[in-house]
């Protein structure tokens, strides 16, 4: 499988007295989509923040591209999409894309091509010149995803990317994510939509700051003797279904 894109070993994170992550072991290999699922407050966002270097691990190691995070230069090779849309309302979609493209360090010559490609994937080409303040919720979400896709990063970290996106477009996005994987790039994705968890290569179940299960959906379902990942999730949480 080669060198892991993300390699978290015995990762712990404390905020003051509060322990958010206890012992996280998680790897994302090249050409793999890893789903991170867990209830609210389980520490999904914190895992992502540590992987991006916004927070520093209190214990264990967090490596991305075989380099210990935080590391500023590496961020150019990661596409990140947060839970909030995080867009500049008074700018147009195109201006948003160009601005973040510039921040990512995309060369001027490639900018137009990259921007157009990203917009095409999320089906926003026709609305690029509109201001974001006039966008619908779904359009904002798509633009946000397009920004993450800019520059064809080797690693995508997506926090709840398909919230508020209609089913047809969601399918289109998953097709694109599959294509990205087939190119040998990797994706770490958090989601609440359980049928999406079926689409990933491996699922990590996060509960109370610990990864309690980490395997392919098929193996997990077998292990828990249930029919869907949703049931795995409920069973792991201790809720009787």
């Amino acid at each position: 499988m080669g060198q892991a894109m993300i390699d978290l070993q015995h990762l712990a994170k404390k905020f003051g007295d509060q322990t958010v992550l206890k012992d996280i072991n998680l790897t994302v290999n090249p050409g793999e989509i890893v789903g991170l699922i867990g209830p609210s407050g389980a520490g999904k966002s914190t895992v992502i923040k540590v992987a991006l270097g916004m927070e520093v691990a209190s214990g264990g190691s967090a490596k991305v591209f075989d380099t210990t995070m935080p590391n500023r230069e590496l961020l150019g090779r990661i596409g990140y999409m947060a839970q909030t849309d995080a867009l500049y309302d008074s700018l147009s979609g195109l201006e948003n894309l160009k601005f973040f493209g510039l921040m990512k360090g995309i060369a001027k010559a490639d900018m137009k091509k990259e921007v157009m490609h990203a917009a095409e994937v999320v089906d926003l080409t026709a609305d690029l010149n509109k201001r974001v303040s006039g966008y619908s919720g779904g359009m904002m979400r798509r633009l946000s995803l397009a920004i993450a896709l800019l520059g064809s990063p080797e690693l995508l970290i997506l926090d709840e990317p398909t919230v508020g996106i209609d089913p047809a477009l969601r399918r289109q996005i998953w097709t694109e994510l599959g294509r990205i994987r087939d190119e040998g790039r990797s994706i770490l994705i958090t989601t609440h939509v359980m049928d999406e968890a079926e689409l990933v290569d491996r699922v990590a179940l996060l509960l109370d700051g610990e990864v309690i299960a980490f395997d392919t959906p098929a193996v997990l379902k077998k292990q828990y003797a249930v029919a869907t990942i949703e049931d795995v999730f409920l069973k792991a949480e201790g809720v009787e279904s």
Partner: protein
Amino acid sequence: MRTIGIMNRVLKELFRDKRTLALMFVAPILVMLLMSVIFNTNASTDVSVGTVSVSQKLNKEMGGIKHVTVKSYDTKQDAKKALNDEKVDAIIKKNGNNYSLTYANTDSTKTATVKLAFKNVLTATSISQLKSALKQSTKATVKLQAQLQALQKQQTAASAMTGSVTAAKQNAAKQATAAKAQSTNHATKSTSQSTPKITNHYVYGDKDTGYFAKMLPILMGFFVFFFVFLISGMALLKERTTGTLDRLLATPVKRSSIVFGYMLSYGVLAVIQTIVIVLTTVWLLGIEVVGSMASVVVINLILALVALAFGILLSTFANSEFQMMQFIPLVIIPQVFFSGIIPLDSMADWVKAISYIIPLKYSGEAVNDIIMRGTSIWNLGFDISILLIFLVGLTILNVIGLKRYRKV
């Protein structure tokens, strides 16, 4: 490169927010226009002057001046009472040849009016005194000349017979010289009498209390500081709450690039704002700028950058726009008090010490010097370097402060 990108983006956002933009440019002009109108209408206010043991003539002259009414009082106590009761705005008292003037000085324009009126009257009376003195001495000279001629006639008549001619001649010459000297003396005396000593007393403040003129440079700085502080603070707060700051920090952009990008964009805005404010004050309000206008813009630009850095720093302690507004009474209002609008010399030492950490004090001093005294910007090194120290310190704090959101 990224810094420029951030600058362009911030400017784009700013120029699309027409209302905020209008606030930045129109509000200061409106307020200053209002203030100048309010302060200038005072100039034509009527003043009443109380006089104690002043000559009838001076009283009459004073009363003849427009907007001035004269009330004569018998004793100083009566006049003082009237002054305290706000019946008169100033008292003129004559002590021998000298005058003692007491101003209520609660309104500097009134004080100025009285001062001017009194000076004019005094000049007028002294000129008339000088005239009469001149007349007297001219008369004396004419008389003397007549005497001299008569004397000479006598001498010519007597010259043939007596030998005492020489003595008489000498005598006459002596007399003439003496008389001339006397008349000159008289004239000098009357001149010295006509320039009495004037002592000024102020119930409130001092002779430097010229309100709007003194306030203006500080006001200019205040507007720049206030708006840049608030708007930049809000802008960064918005970046944080909408998550764009996180997204920005998830790219390889340097923390310093973000801070510098903001500085450049708001610097551009501050330059435009300062130019607008300076031009308004100079052309619309007719304020004289002795020094260079470019220097005024430069000082205000530095102040704006300090305000920007300050706004960004404080925005990290606010969780909402409303919390940002709460910094106004805490940060902005004290700036006004210590900026020099109220004379600092009269304050207690520990209060004065606070003023040393107020950026507006230094910019106010510097701009005051430029506008009123025409001081060159190169001679304001102290004020400028203090402002720069503020700027550098706050900027470093901001770059470090962003570490809260990304550890590298």
